[in-house]
């Protein structure tokens, strides 16, 4: 996402709202990518034969070089007079060639580089060379003793360079030769959770202390043990020093607009015009507009919801008992009052749907309930259709563009879509199932602490199964469990595994109003399963009541003794 804030991306962006957004961007984006391989490469400098201090010194130099390359790219874009065809010029400056050369020479001098020519390309090549020489230097000094190593590093001019000071210097130089005094530069770091911890520490510590021409945009997963404590007065604090922008959606509806826009853009790209999501995908089963419940279309005799309620009324005595106790007849929900419809029926509709879908009709009868759990049955659904339709697809992909694109790419290939019709529900269900399976494969292979005896996916499966049992197998309740709180009885191994799950998007943090969205510990925090996994464990797509995680895991442990066959991926 931060990539999109770079000048070339903004200029190349074609969208009805593009001009409006471009106008609002009063800074130059300087994008610094991070990924897992680069992070381990930094940590592997010296191939395990260097002391940690030397690894840090050389790693920091490499990081500084990477930031300097990004700054050079941004400078070069600002003063490039050639706007590619079809692009809209944004924040470009007209700078004479002599001033550009002077800028390059000044940067080279300050950054201790010797480009062959006074051009940005040559300067960039010098930085590439420096990057390579850092790895060579690490190999070389790994054969030295500690004292010789320290002396050698001290001789290297770039090792001592402070990263952000070098950026400030560059901005000063840019203003001197190109103008634009006081302009802002947004250093944008993506996927910071993957970066070495000292990179995060440096950036988080710098937020309140550096030049006000520099804006930090730091994208990272919510959980990190090295996030500054909120009660540490020396650290930057939310609201005062930085704004937190939550990029996940606790309530599924909040992500729909983004997902719909992405759907439109991708269908437009595929066939030359945007197709409304409802036209191609139909409506989600879990959904109905709030107005439908009050205005009378959702519950009318013969409507989808009316049929669902009547079906469960007949099949599930505990549901019948629940509705009877509040004075509603499940076969005639249209007779319920307007308030009852909005407050009660709408709330329980997803649970009714899940129970109808997955429950055998006699599940609640005393004779079945007396049976051991293993002997009770649920309906077999390889790819349940329940998670299809526009809203459900948007919900299960959680507003994650990578997930959504993965599913949309499959759906727009099918003949029904190309013919302008609705993509078959089984095809949609299979696409969701595939996406969930891929995600499960990632989680199954997530590296854990050596002491862990259970994987991330196994823990999540326990949570999913618990919710499924509560929603489908147990006697009907209007407010079944749908989320969990990590309580004090949870082991550090499980917390570590859940930290991985959170940062991979497998669980979603549900903060209270006043809670910081960046967290150092999971304890006492509430989470829900990602809806992509909910589809895997046949959970309704809803944020349900919370229960302590230890209660879930205790139950799972008891259940395992009953040898319940594994369900899900």
């Amino acid at each position, binding site marked *: 996402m931060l990539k999109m804030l770079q000048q070339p991306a903004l200029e190349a962006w074609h969208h009805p709202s593009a001009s409006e957004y471009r106008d609002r961007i009063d800074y130059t984006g300087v994008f610094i*990518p991070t*990924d897992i*391989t680069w992070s381990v*490469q930094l940590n592997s400098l010296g*191939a395990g034969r260097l002391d940690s201090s030397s690894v840090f010194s050389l790693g920091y130099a490499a990081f500084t070089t990477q930031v300097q*390359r990004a700054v050079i790219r941004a400078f070069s874009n600002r003063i490039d007079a050639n706007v590619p065809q079809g692009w809209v010029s944004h924040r470009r400056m007209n700078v004479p060639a002599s001033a550009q050369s002077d800028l390059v020479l000044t940067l080279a001098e300050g950054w201790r580089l010797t480009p062959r020519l006074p051009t940005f390309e040559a300067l960039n090549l010098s930085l590439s060379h420096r990057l390579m020489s850092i*790895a060579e230097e690490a190999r070389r000094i790994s054969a030295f003793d500690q004292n010789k190593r320290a002396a050698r590093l001290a001789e290297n001019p770039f090792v001592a360079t402070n990263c952000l000071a070098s950026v400030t210097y560059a901005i000063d130089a840019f203003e001197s030769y190109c103008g634009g005094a006081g302009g802002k530069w947004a250093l944008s770091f993506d996927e910071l959770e993957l970066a070495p911890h000292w990179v995060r520490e440096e950036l988080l510590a710098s937020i309140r202390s550096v030049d006000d021409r520099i804006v930090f945009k730091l994208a990272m997963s919510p959980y990190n043990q090295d996030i500054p404590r909120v009660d540490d007065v020396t650290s930057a604090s939310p609201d005062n020093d930085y704004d937190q922008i939550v990029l996940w959606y606790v309530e599924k509806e909040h992500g729909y607009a983004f997902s719909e826009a992405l759907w439109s853009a991708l269908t437009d790209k595929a066939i030359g015009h945007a197709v409304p999501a409802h036209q191609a995908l139909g409506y989600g089963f879990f959904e109905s507009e709030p107005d439908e419940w009050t205005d009378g279309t959702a519950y009318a005799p013969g409507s989808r919801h009316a049929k669902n309620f009547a079906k469960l009324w007949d099949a599930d005595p505990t549901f019948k008992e629940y509705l009877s106790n509040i004075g509603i007849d499940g076969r005639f929900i249209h007779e319920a009052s307007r308030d009852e419809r909005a407050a009660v029926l709408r709330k329980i509709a997803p649970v009714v749907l899940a129970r109808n879908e997955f429950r055998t009709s006699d599940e609640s009868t005393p004779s079945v309930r007396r049976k051991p759990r293993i002997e009770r049955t649920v309906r077999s659904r390889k790819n349940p259709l329940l998670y299809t339709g526009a809203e459900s697809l948007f919900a299960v992909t959680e507003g994650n563009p990578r997930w959504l694109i993965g599913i949309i790419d499959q759906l727009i290939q099918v003949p029904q879509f190309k013919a302008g019709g609705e993509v078959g529900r089984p095809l949609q269900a299979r696409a969701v199932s595939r996406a969930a399976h891929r995600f499960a*494969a990632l989680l*199954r292979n997530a590296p854990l602490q050596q002491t862990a005896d259970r*994987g991330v996916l196994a823990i999540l499966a326990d949570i999913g199964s618990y919710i499924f049992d509560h929603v489908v197998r147990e006697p009907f309740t209007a407010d079944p469990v749908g989320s969990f709180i990590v309580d004090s009885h949870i082991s550090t191994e499980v917390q570590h595994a859940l930290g991985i799950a959170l940062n991979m998007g497998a669980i979603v943090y549900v903060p209270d109003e006043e809670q910081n969205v960046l967290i150092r510990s999971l304890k006492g925090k509430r989470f829900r399963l990602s809806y992509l996994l909910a589809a895997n464990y046949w959970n309704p797509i809803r944020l349900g009541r919370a229960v302590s995680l230890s209660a879930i895991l205790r139950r799972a442990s008891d259940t395992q003794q009953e040898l319940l066959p594994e369900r899900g991926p």
Partner: protein
Amino acid sequence: MDITVEPLEPAFDETYDVAIVSVGYEQRSSFLAPTLSGDAKIAIVFTDRHVHSFDENLRVIERCGFRTVSGSGAFVEEIAESVRSRSLVTPGRPLRVAFDISSMTRQWIADIVCAMRDTGVRVSADFLYTIAHFTAPPEPPLTQYAGPVTPQLAGWDEPDKPLSLLLGLGYEKDRALGAAELLEPSELYVFSPVSIDIDYERALEAANVDLWGLAPTHTHRFTYQISRPFDTFVQLESLAEGLLRRRRVVLLPLGPKIFALCTVLLAASQSAYGVWRVSAGEHETPVDRKAAGTVVGLRVQFLPEGSAVP
């Protein structure tokens, strides 16, 4: 140090100065030991999972005159030292060393290749691999590690280049898919081993069925013959070289160790490439793989800088 990889037709009458094998729970780990000559013979012994054929392997290997060293100790230094000291009595010709990598871990293979690269001694090494009969894949255990196969082969390249992953397939269910999802490459090059065993190929296909839908337009599928490692090396080398100018290259060798050897040799001679492994470590379920009788290999010349090619 220059590294030159050559084809090899393994012959049982080959004479070596140094022979290195491993002792593990797979029956095939002692298959080659009786055929390997050498003035110095070293067997690296796994310190965990002494099950299946481990005891018998140890008996065979000790009877063949191998000196055992612990797999958890500094055995790589010991091997390197042995190579250096033997080279002193073989002046004028490269030291002949045999490595039976069949049951070695990927990390051991990587550490050994790096050690040979860094000894400063002219070495002509035969890396030998015994193909095993098919055994059904075990239940996938918990992953304990995902990262460079050894810090020496973490790779080093410009981080703003897009990532290409060259992935060797194994038959562990969804491990390749999970690894690809973890690294999020912009392009995926998948290498499927072609075996003479149809059961193996079926297991391979079943374990990776969902990999193909990951990003079809950015996934490129190749096959390689387990029995023709030199061809595999050349194939990998030319692909990686072609990618290097515009992309970072990471190699992730799941599946047969002979493919892992190819990736390690490639990265040992080009520091930009990284080689990763995804492993359950000691939690990997032990499977008793039995030698099928076919041995394949690569001959690798490690030449100190400035020395002439023999």
